[in-house]
């Protein structure tokens, strides 16, 4: 939960802090969590291209996992994965 008081927030809820959306952890909205099977993954990076947020972590041109702080669990990566390496798992089970 946020803790700023009303008078500490910019008028009208305007955002005056450039790029502060990365501080807003939208990952808590998720009801399903993507998981990758790296044995199947070909590092084609379709998941990285299609992710509507910025939640596919890529290192050295290889897909290495998910940024769960912002992944909302939309499932697009799993749907698009040509190798069927990504599966959606229920959160909280």
């Amino acid at each position: 939960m946020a803790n700023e008081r009303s008078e500490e927030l910019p008028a009208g809820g305007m955002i005056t802090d450039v790029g502060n959306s990365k501080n807003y952890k939208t990952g808590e909205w998720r009801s399903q969590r993507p998981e990758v099977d790296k044995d199947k993954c070909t590092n084609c990076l379709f998941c990285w291209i299609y992710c509507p947020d910025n939640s596919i972590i890529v290192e050295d041109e290889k897909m290495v996992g998910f940024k769960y702080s912002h992944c909302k669990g939309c499932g697009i990566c799993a749907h698009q994965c040509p190798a069927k390496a990504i599966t959606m798992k229920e959160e909280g089970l």
Partner: protein
Amino acid sequence: MGRPLAINGDAAIALAWKQVNPDVVAAYPITPQTIMVEAFSDYVADGQVDTEYICAESEHSAMSICIGASAAGARVATATASAGLALMWEMLYIAASMRTPIVMAIANRTLSGPINIHCDHSDTMGARDSGWVQLYGENVQEAYDNTIMAFRIAENMKVRLPVMTCIDGFIITHALERLETLDDQVVEDFIGLYQATRPLLDIGNPTTYGPIALPDYFYEIKYQQAVAMGSVAAVTKEVMADYAKVSGRRYKLVEGYRTEDADHVVVAMGSTSGTLRHVVDRMRERGSKVGSVKIRLFRPFPSEELAAILKGKKGVAVMDRALSPGTGGALYSDVLQSIHDIPDAPKVTNYIYGLGGRDVMPEQLEGVFEEVMAGNGERINFMGVRI
């Protein structure tokens, strides 16, 4: 002083806009507001203002354009009435919550149905909770004066809220009256230069307007509007005092007429207030201790000022030119909540009247006073309807 003119209420508002010279006006014509936008588009076409005038395809678009222009850093005005205001409904709340100080003139006209183009206050009463400041003018002079003062109120840094200036459709919008104007330079000096806060076009300080705010932030941002509204009464009093210096016309949030020693008082807004003063004078000649009250500022509601006037009265009637079916009028509720905790609060009754442009005759208002004095009115009454 500028020269006096014979002019109708709509044209008087267009003239005030001309002198204000807003950066952007986006509007859609609707009876009885039409003359405002027609007259102002003449000023634009004739090169008498620098305004970017945008003919929108609907009122929803007109208000959306106004919000965008205001966020971009422009001084903005628009106007509408009735169904046009209803079509703006979604954007009214957004204008207020984004704190865009837009000034909008309203030619009060009823909401259908049955379809009707004439005056009552149902359109702006419907916008009562949208977060806009609402000022009501009694006549053409007040239409002009309220318009100029509205820019100062809206743009005050403590306020930064949009303001509606309302006048009665046809009764004031189309009636020719004498208007004392101010010189252009006086208006320019009075309103001053527009100061934008975090304008979108200031690319050195990037700002996002209108972002999503979920349960963790929404309430705090809405509370800011309550705080801003809380500053409006004091700011409006300052603006009115300054306006008196340049115009010689001194206004108040709530104006009592012969109320000091009155036992019975009738409260109203808009053009009926003038008729009421005439009726008060006539009844005073016959020895009745009566007075009247005009509410100029309706949102925020000036409860303290009103309670100070109504304290100690024996009976009060509230005239509502709009009906909330299932209860009385909105003004009635506000008057009641303003006085319920003062000692010996007067008995207050409600009169719905003048719906859909029904004429309001002095004899009918005398009848209201007679019922208040006799104490025999119902809690909610319907003046002038054929039952």
